[in-house]
């Protein structure tokens, strides 16, 4: 265990500060047209309409940062809920097939019926993710309870592989749409605009509030199904409600920026190290950590082969994989 044992309020404050700093850096760094740190601040509350730099900050960078924050918070919260519902430390949107299912849904609609537009692909992503998640839960017999950890993860891997294969088939069949789908598959905030933000934030707010509301129930689930039931938890409703929240959080996030992996798997574990096992504490910590991580990765993704961009999802994997190895070695997951 890392022994950064600030009190809870202190941790929240530190993370908010960190998030503000990362966001600010992200607003002005790595731009072809030079943006000063002050430009970034002015663009927020005292915009000079003549300054191109400030326009870039306001029209391109700001929505991008905000969407990054929401995506990070959403995926981290989804990971926390999934790990709580399944009592499986490996549960996350990417491991349990939701990302792959959503990718398949999105690729299918954008290749076969591109005229559906953004709303259509978003819906397709949510429906695809939902179907994949339902299959994984059924195959892994997670509804019946018990400690079938291995079976659930195997089901997730199998469904992911199936969805990935089908996605590739769809891309090959509809080659002209392939580039867009591939960028989306890697997960990138390049195309994050105010338009995306406008359709994203209401779902994000509802999903995150819902997650906070079921946090006390997730606490009881860690005592095992029998104890949770005995303490008055209606397991079926919690599992259905929790799954719905996961789909809302993951679906809205990946239909906005693509299949960003690792956040949902890693951040809950990081948050537990910081804040302990009480979901009412580590869930908000996880949301903030997730937001920091995605904003940071997005900033780095712009700098690494500047002036071109790499997908933020790739940077996250670069940061995430070593940390995951550390976790695996540190404790038996």
């Amino acid at each position, binding site marked *: 265990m890392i022994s950064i044992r600030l009190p809870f309020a202190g941790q929240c404050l530190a993370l908010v500060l960190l998030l503000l700093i990362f966001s600010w850096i992200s607003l002005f760094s790595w731009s072809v047209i030079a943006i000063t740190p002050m430009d970034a601040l002015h663009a927020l509350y005292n915009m000079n309409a003549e300054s191109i730099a400030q326009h870039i900050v306001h029209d391109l960078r700001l929505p991008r940062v905000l969407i990054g924050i929401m995506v990070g918070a959403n995926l981290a919260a989804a990971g926390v809920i999934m790990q709580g519902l399944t009592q499986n430390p490996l549960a996350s949107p990417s491991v349990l097939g939701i990302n792959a299912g959503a990718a398949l849904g999105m690729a299918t609609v954008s290749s076969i019926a591109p005229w559906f537009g953004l709303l259509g692909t978003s819906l397709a992503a949510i429906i695809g993710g939902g179907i994949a998640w339902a299959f994984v839960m059924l195959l892994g017999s997670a509804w019946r309870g018990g400690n079938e950890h291995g079976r659930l993860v195997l089901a997730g891997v199998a469904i992911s592989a199936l969805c990935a294969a089908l996605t590739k088939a769809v891309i090959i069949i509809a080659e002209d749409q392939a580039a867009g789908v591939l960028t989306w598959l890697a997960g990138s905030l390049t195309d994050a605009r105010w338009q995306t933000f406008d359709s994203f934030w209401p779902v994000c707010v509802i999903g995150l509030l819902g997650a906070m*509301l079921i*946090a*006390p129930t997730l*606490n*009881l689930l*860690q*005592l*095992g199904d*029998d*104890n949770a*039931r*005995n*303490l*008055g*938890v*209606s397991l079926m409703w919690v599992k259905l409600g929790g799954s719905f929240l996961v789909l809302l959080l993951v679906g809205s996030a990946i239909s906005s920026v693509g299949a960003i992996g690792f956040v949902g798997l890693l951040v809950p574990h990081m948050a*537990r190290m910081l804040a*302990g*096992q*009480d979901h*009412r504490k580590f869930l908000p910590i996880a949301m903030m950590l997730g937001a920091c991580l995605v904003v940071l990765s997005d900033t780095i993704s712009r700098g690494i082969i500047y002036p071109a961009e790499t997908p933020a999802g790739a940077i996250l994997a670069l940061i995430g994989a070593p940390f995951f190895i550390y976790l695996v070695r540190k404790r038996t997951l």
Partner: protein
Amino acid sequence: MSLSTHNLSVGYHDKAIVKQVDLSIPEGKIIALLGPNGCGKSTLLKAMARILSPMEGQVHWQGKNLHGISSKKLAQQLALLPQTQPIPEGIKVKDLVAYGRSPYTGFWGRINRDDQVIIDNVMTETGIIELADQLVSELSGGQRQRVWLAMTLAQDTPYLLLDEPTTYMDLSHQVELMHLLRKLNLQGKTIVTVLHDINQAARYCDYLIVMKQGEIVTQGMPESVLTETMLKDVFSLNAQIHQDPIAQTPMCVVE
């Protein structure tokens, strides 16, 4: 009778473990469920706590089908201590015991002053108050069992269903536990407990229910239930019944 089963069959994977049991739990008593391993004691207890759904028949709570009652309301009436418990990671003793108040807590699981009084009380009664700040995962088996018991007691229900509560406990803690059950009984709680020690059951319980192969063989006061023929039939034991020199309750001595 407040808690009763009617033609109840229940089990796992289509196989009935408890078979067509009709049973009324006498109110205000300490009741021991006895029987050899695999006879369905735990299964019956779980069905009465609604952890398992009946395959056939019903469990009634105050004349109503148990499955028609809301989860939270039921959790204020019945508390079950399961036989095998998980070892939760990173949870402190006091927090685990506090989870026992969940059926009562208001918005967002907030613990109020009354809850805290109950939590402190049960931790004192179960002798774990000094362990309050330790992690549950770092305790010994017997200590952990007392922590789970404390959580169950914190639920403060008129009915307690305990599945082998003495597991992992040394003899002195077992005796302490039985005394605690008596005290709780005097406060008006009805307690149904699975026990393996027949003499302990005869000494501390008012009513014995003996099961064999999913059916109830006999039930009643210890004096009428604990007989040499019953021990022979149910446990395949050759034993004699004597009187406990201190409590004057029946006591079996194996030949």
